[in-house]
């Protein structure tokens, strides 16, 4: 997105909104990771604590999901850049 058409004051407001949203994105990622990895890895409810096997499954799951998110983030940014170029060429 391009905010250069905005007044300086509005750009500052936008920056604060952006900061708030990044915090929300992080909290959503964090909560989503727990939900996904407990869903995929925790099956034994005869005990009250995470077992060794569950523990490594959770770590792998979290690590893999973060790498997936980062990879998709890169591809997504590339696609968005391509589209803005295409939109610019069309003007």
């Amino acid at each position: 997105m391009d905010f250069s058409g905005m007044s300086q004051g509005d750009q500052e407001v936008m920056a604060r909104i952006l900061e708030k949203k990044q915090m929300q994105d992080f909290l959503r990622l964090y909560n989503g990771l727990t939900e996904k990895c407990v869903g995929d890895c925790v099956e034994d409810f005869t005990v009250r604590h995470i077992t060794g096997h569950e523990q490594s499954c959770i770590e792998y799951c979290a690590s893999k999901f973060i790498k997936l998110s980062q990879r998709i983030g890169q591809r997504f940014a590339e696609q968005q850049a391509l589209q803005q170029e295409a939109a610019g060429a069309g003007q």
Partner: protein
Amino acid sequence: MGLFGGGNSAAAAAQSAAQLQMAEQEMDAITDLFNRLVSTCNKKCVPNKYRDGELTKGESVCIDRCVAKYMEAHDKIGKLLQEMNAQQGGQAPV
């Protein structure tokens, strides 16, 4: 807000508020698109049995193609919605 941004009338403030709101909605829509993209390509490309914490080569290739196809589908559906809108002066339900 608007201190260095030119005219300071109520009209300018309203325009500025509308512009900020649209920018915020656009950001929310992109975040939502990204989250659904991640969820879809995760389901399509990464089995939920984990042997280690790395993406395999095959998974990585699948993910890249999944992103490309997802965005292509998103574009096509966007055009479809525009056509329907043009035809019917149609509106979203509710």
